[in-house]
Structures are given as C-alpha cells and as structure tokens.
C-alpha cells in the first residue's frame, strides 16, 4: 500500500480549499466496469455538435502563483495545464456517473477497448488507429508501451505507484501484435485499471525517448506535443493561450472537435482576483470558492450563470482508536450524535458542502451504493447523554463527562491550518460537543506535521479527508479502514480482520457482490464508527452559458467539472460548443 505525494499549491495550504490537492492514491481494488458493455462513445458529443467552430473561452481558477510555462504531464505542480488539453489518457472514467449496477461510466479514448484475463492479472488494451501527435507523427501502441516503461525507468514519474516493488502490481507492459498493449500484473489488480487507463497521460516516444530516461521528471516540456484537443500556442507568466488542434482525432467532416477556437488560462494569485474576474463576466469556466456566491456571482446574470458543487469525499472526524477513551464505542456514538451535521454544513461551509452520513457513502454522487436502512446518522444530544451515562460516565463539576477513573472526555482535535472553512466548522463542532459534556480543543498544524501525526497516530481526534476520490466509495473506504493502511491513510488505526477480508474479496467479485461488500462496510461504519463523517467535500465549479453550451450539469454529470480535474477537463473541452 503506497500513496504518493504531490506538492500542494499555495491555494491548498493557506486558504479555503479553493483548489484541491489532486493527489492520486494507489489503492488495491477492482473496477468492474473495466471491460464489457457499460461504455459510451466519445462521439456522443455529437448531440450538441452544430458543426460550428469559434469563440474564446476563459478559465477562472486561482493558481496561487504565476505560470512557469512547463507542461510535463508527470510534474504534479504543472500538469493541470497539460493533461486534458494536450495529453490524453487511454480511457476516460467518470467518477460522478454510475451505471445502474453502480459501476462508473467508461469512455474509450486513445484505446478503443480493454479486456481482463479471467484471473484479472493481465489487461489487454486495444489502441486506436488514425490518431496523430500534434507534430504530425502517427500515434501508435508503441507510444503506450513506451510511456508505461518510462514510469519504470524514472520512478519519480510513477505518481500512482504502478511499478512500486512492495505492492508492485505491474510486472511488464508489452506490445502484442500491432495495436494491442498487454499489462501484466503479479496479482489480481483490477483496481489499477483506473490508474492505467484514466490517470496516466500518454507521451510521444519520438520526442521523450531521446531524453535522459532517468530524469524525465525534470523535463520542462516547454513545447508540448500531444494528441489532445488543444495546442499550446503561447505561454507567459500570467496567461496560457491554447488554440484548437485542427487535426484532432475526434474531428469528422461536419463534426469538428473541439468547437471552441481558443481557450485562455490566466494565472490568478489570489482567490479574490479570480472571483472578481469571474463576477465581472470576463471568464466563463470557474473552479472557485466564492463567499456569498448568490449575490456576488449568480445574481449579476442569474439566467446564464450557474454553479454546481458535486461532493466527492467525506470530511471526517478521525478518532484515534489507540486512545483508551476513544476506543470506547459509547464515546464515539456520543460524538456522532452530538454533532448537528446540518448546522456544521450551514455555518462552517455556508451550506455549500452538504452534511455527510455515518455510512461513509458520499451522496448523491455514490447513491447507487447507499443503503438507507443501514444508516445510523442522527442528531440527538439527549441520546448522547443517555449513552454516556449508560456506559458509566458521570458528569464532573465542570459539566464534562469522566469515566470511573476520573479521566475526563477532553480531547484535542488536530487539523490543517489554513483551511478556514474547516476551522469554522470545528468552532461549531466544539460548541456542540461541549453541550453534551465532551470537551475538545482545536489544534491547527501545518500540513506537513499534520500528515506526520495522522499517519503515526500521534493525535486524539483529527479532522480532515482522504487524499483523493476514485470511481466508487471503495476508493475512499479502503484507504480509511484497511488495516494494511495503518501508518498511511488509516488514521483511526482501525483493525478488523472481517473488514479486511471484505476488502480482499472485493477484487474477485461481480458488480452485484461488490455492492453487497460495500454495504457490509457501510454497516461497519454505521455500527463501529471507526470514522465519523461530518460534511462532504465538494468540487467548486461555476459556468456561464452566455457564449458557450455543453457544460456538465447535475442532470448531465458527464465529467468532474472543475478545470483542475484531469483528464475530465479534456472531456469537457471536447463537448463545449459556442452559442451564437
């Protein structure tokens, strides 16, 4: 079990979480929709394609620093400006859209399809033909083989730990025939499909192959050559200008893709300046946290301006189960009952981040997995009182409960400093817990010591979230609860052989069985409370329909909508069209 690190941008570490860390975590698991029927075609964009090309789209997202004009898709601090625009994945997996059986929707991209061997150790992907790199060189299966082997040659590129030795699922990537690539794993490894197909951008061998293969991570890639819908036309510190790739492989006669002629990506140092630009109507695609969004942004053109904040991850209280008081189920139950999640959502997050539930399933995003009958979420301070009293706790003179040995229910909550919305939420939580006789003190830490402390278990309670979402609740629940993740992402230090077994079974299961497994884990969450979800973290996203249509919406959630969500941004860029 490994997870990799991406340098946070300033916006992450020091302000409200305008720009989320796009850390990708390698989690062992399975992705049922890897092959088979549940796929859509990229040409489904045709429904909105009026065959017209034109317009200039301006993106609005606080970058926290000026552009460095580097486009290396494996440099995590710059690749949000190259993946999706210039570099593309093999297949596109939409974490927001599920098939009726709960599996995510997969769209073939540079690969036309894929299939697993019966034991899930061998993945064969068929590579599309007729695709050209932007310098005119044909794209082939060799480029795919090259890309994956480059990750092996320079481990600093291997952001998803595909080749890492200990969990090391990938053992070889080879060419079969002319257009097939075979990925061989040392164990059933369907969960890696997401990372192989969706999270690895393909680079051209004829350009990257002649560089020093051990130092590819340091390559600046100032003039990127990719297969993507846009070409980088001009880059300065304050703006990146992309022009449409006239030879993009998805274009057909009478069906041009992409349809927007120019895309500009200005660098915004502060949230304020990005918000102002968006509110003035100068930009159309926002990924901004905006205080008072209704009056500040929407009301200025309410018929054309919209926002949508799809939730993807829980923001939770992590009790350290090595702590003798917190290992007591009654205490965890009391904490969960004492917190008015609606109130935290309303006060701490201005209502933008919805209340979470105790099953750990993020709603409505993963509603296909949610079983309401299992859910134990409730706000009931009186019941919290009863539970504590029944468990032998008595109230001290200060109104704080204590156990038989006189140890008070008094804890510190560690959280990351600079996330003002979390601080605000914790102020609400502190008061609510105090009302039932549990004393908590908030301790802000920089992200580095916070990471250390949560991983090493040097905390009592922690407030935060898992590094990244994936296609299904499994991608959040496993890192949170699997005993093998103690020391990395299992902050609570939850250890249960039956839960571990469930996670291990998941890899060999059918979609229906997977649903059952997740629902059993929901039961674990609801009954054992190893983690107490409070609110649901969301993607900030605003769009203006005055000049462009085809946006992702709650009714048509065809991709994760913020521009920093890669490669989803590529999916959006190929679907947007100018409105006359």
């Amino acid at each position, binding site marked *: *079990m*490994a*997870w*990799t*690190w991406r*340098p*946070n*941008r*300033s916006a992450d*570490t*020091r302000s409200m979480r305008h720009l989320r860390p796009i850390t990708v975590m390698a989690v062992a698991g399975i992705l049922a929709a890897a092959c088979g029927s549940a796929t859509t075609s990229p040409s489904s964009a045709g429904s909105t394609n009026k065959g017209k090309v034109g317009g200039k789209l301006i993106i609005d997202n606080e970058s*926290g*620093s*000026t552009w*460095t004009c*580097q486009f*290396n898709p494996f*440099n995590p*601090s*710059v690749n949000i400006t190259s993946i999706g625009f210039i570099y593309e994945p093999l297949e596109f997996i939409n974490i927001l859209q599920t098939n009726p059986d709960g599996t995510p929707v997969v769209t073939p991209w540079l690969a036309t399809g894929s299939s697993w061997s019966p034991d899930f150790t061998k993945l064969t992907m068929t590579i599309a033909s007729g695709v050209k790199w932007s310098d005119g060189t044909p794209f082939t299966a060799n480029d795919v083989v090259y890309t994956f082997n480059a990750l092996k040659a*320079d*481990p*600093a590129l*291997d952001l998803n*730990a595909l080749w*890492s*030795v*200990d*969990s*090391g699922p990938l053992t070889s990537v080879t060419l079969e025939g002319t257009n097939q690539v075979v990925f061989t794993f040392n164990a059933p490894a369907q969960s890696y499909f997401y990372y192989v197909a969706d999270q690895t951008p393909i680079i051209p061998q004829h350009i990257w192959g002649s560089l020093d293969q*051990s130092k590819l*991570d*340091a390559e*600046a890639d100032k003039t990127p050559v990719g297969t993507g819908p846009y070409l980088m036309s001009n880059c*300065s*510190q*304050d*703006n990146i200008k992309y022009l449409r790739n006239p030879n993009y492989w998805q274009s057909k006669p009478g069906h041009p893709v992409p349809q927007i002629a120019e895309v*500009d990506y*200005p660098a*915004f*140092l*502060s949230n*304020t*300046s990005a918000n*102002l*630009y968006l509110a003035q109507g*100068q930009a159309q695609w926002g990924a901004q946290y905006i205080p008072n969004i209704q009056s500040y942004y929407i009301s200025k053109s309410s018929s054309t301006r919209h926002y949508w904040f799809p939730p993807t991850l829980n923001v939770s209280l992590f009790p350290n189960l090595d702590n003798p008081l917190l290992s007591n189920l009654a205490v965890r139950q009391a904490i969960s009952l004492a917190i008015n999640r609606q109130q935290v959502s309303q006060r701490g997050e201005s209502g933008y981040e919805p209340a979470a539930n105790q099953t750990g399933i993020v709603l409505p995003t993963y509603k296909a997995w949610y079983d309401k009958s299992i859910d134990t979420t409730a706000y009931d301070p009186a019941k919290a009182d009863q539970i504590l009293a029944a468990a032998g706790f008595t109230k001290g003179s200060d109104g704080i409960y204590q156990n038989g040995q006189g140890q008070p229910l008094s804890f510190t909550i560690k959280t990351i400093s*600079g996330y003002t919305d979390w601080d605000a939420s914790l102020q609400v939580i502190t008061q609510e817990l105090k009302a039932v006789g549990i004393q908590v003190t908030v301790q802000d*830490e*920089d992200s*580095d*010591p916070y*990471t*250390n402390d949560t*991983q090493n278990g040097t905390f009592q309670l922690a407030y935060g979230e898992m590094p990244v979402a994936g296609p299904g609740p499994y991608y959040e629940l496993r890192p949170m609860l699997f005993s093998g993740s103690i*020391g*990395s992402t299992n902050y609570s230090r939850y250890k249960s052989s039956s839960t571990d077994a469930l996670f291990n079974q998941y890899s060999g299961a059918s979609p229906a069985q997977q649903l059952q497994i997740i629902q059993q884990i929901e039961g674990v969450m609801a009954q054992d409370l190893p983690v107490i979800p409070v609110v649901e973290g969301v993607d900030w996203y605003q769009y203006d329909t005055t000049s462009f249509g085809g946006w992702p919406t709650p009714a048509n959630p065809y991709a994760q909508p913020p521009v920093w969500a890669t490669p989803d941004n590529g999916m959006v860029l190929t679907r947007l069209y100018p409105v006359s």
Partner: protein
Amino acid sequence: MRYITRRAGLFLITLWAALTVNFIIPRVMPGNEASAVLATFRGVNPSALHALEIEFGVNVHQNLIVTYFQYLANCLTGQFGLTAQRVPVLTEIISKLPWTLALVGVTTVIAFAIGTMVGVVSAWRRGGRLDGILPPLLFIVASFPVFFVGLLLLFVFAVTLNWLPLSSNYSIGAEPSLSLSFAGDVLTHALLPGFSLVVVTAGLWIYSMRNNMITTLAEDYVKMGRAKGLPSWRIMIDYAARNAILPNLTGFAMQLGYVLGGSILVEYTFSYPGLGYLFYTSTTDHDLPLMQALFLVYTLAVLICVLLADLATAGLDPRTRDA
C-alpha cells in the same frame, strides 16, 4: 580606510550569518520539508525514495557538514536549484524582480522626497501650521500597519468607487509591450500598492529629518550664515538640510529592510506578483530552495545599500574616515 575595511568585514560576516540561518532553520525546525517529503512517501519503494530525495535535494543520509559547505558554495555561485514547481530558482526570481524593484524603488524615492521636504520645511518654520499638523499626523500614520492602509485604500478606491484595479500588476490579457497604453495599465495597477507604501514610510523620513534639521539649525555655521545675511532658502538648503541628511544615510539604507518587509505585505494584499508575493507563496508551500534564495536576496539588498551608504558617508564626511 580602516572604516571601510571594517564595514566590509561586517558585510561578509552578516552575509555568512544570513546564509547560515537560512541553512539551519529549516533543518532544526519540526515539520521541515525533508522529513515531510519522506514521511508522505512512506511505502514507496526504496529506489523511488532515493530518486525523490535527490530530486528535492533532501538527501538525509549525507553528512550535515558536507551539505553545509555544498550549500555555501552553491549560494555563492548562484546555484539555487529548482523550485517545487521545478523551475530554476534564479529564473523565477529574475522574472519577478523588476516588479518589486520598481514598486519599492519608486515609492522609496517618493517617500524620501516628500519626507525630507516636509521635514526640512517644518523644522525651518517650527511651530508653524505645517509643523503642527503634518509631522505628528504622519508619525501616527507611520505606526499603522501597511496592510491596513492597503485594505482601506483597496476598499475605498477599488471595491466601492471602482476607480482602480483590485489586484495584479497589469490587466489580464494585456500584452506586455512598450506602448503608452500598457504603461498606463501598469501604472494604474501600481497606484494603490505604491501609495500604501508611501503613506506608511513618508512619516519616518519627516520625523528624522525634522529632528536632524532642528539640531543642525542650532549649529554655529548656520548662525554664521544668517549673520552674513544670506537668503533664508540658501541657509535652509545649503547649510542646514545638506548637513542634516548626512547622518541619516546609513539609517536610510537600513530602513530598506523595513520597506522590503512592507512590500511583502502590500504585494500580498494586492496580489501583486513580485518578489514579496513569491516569498509568501514559497513559505506557505515550504518551497525551501526558493525561500532560502529570496531571504538571501532581501538580505543582500539591504547589505548592498548599507555598504553604499557607508561609502557615501565616508566620502562626504571626513570624520568617519578615522573613526
């Protein structure tokens, strides 16, 4: 000459001290980048870890003394390494330097000019209306935090009146060129941050200039000038003001450290992409190489100015030469 040698010695020792502080702080404080990087990479295979150590320059297995001397050598040869975004630190600094240099340079000159002038005149017309109002008023304004002045100006002129831009160094989408319209655009963006700095620093010059003038006016040679019947403006400028500025030169140079500090807060308040903003982001990102280099740049800037002021003082005032 001994004076100059001694000041040069101070220059070198201070530089060394700044470099060393720079080296030590991140290594003794908890939560340094080295340990953080390694901690978050827990579970990555050892060879990948090694690659990352090299990449981030946090080779923890190396002898600290060796690292230290390597670091000194690198700093002195201008090899500051790569930022967290993998851009050469020097490139990054050079690209932001002109904006801060212009902002701080112009505002310092303006503040110094205003301050000196008002200081001279109010001391000359002591007890006059100007003297009764401006020096104490500006002294109080100088005690205001610069970011408060910035926020206030921003609120009045950018948010409420919408006369001036809220942030940045020029309009988004403007193509940098030598044209008049671009220069105007840059100027309107620099107006509020520049004014904040002037307002807060002018009071300092007024105060010290006024006090020096008052002392100088009591000197015999000024009385002599008056006795000779010279026009009063000549006494004011040639006799008193020139001599009143002299003892202030080194203080003036040291104030630069204060102004530079102010520019960090101002650049942050107005999202002005200069060195100050870069410094702010480098600390929040724990971008060690960038932060070290910037701290060095700030120290060097003050050191060079102090040295220049020393040289000027030595050249102008013979008394210091054998001091």
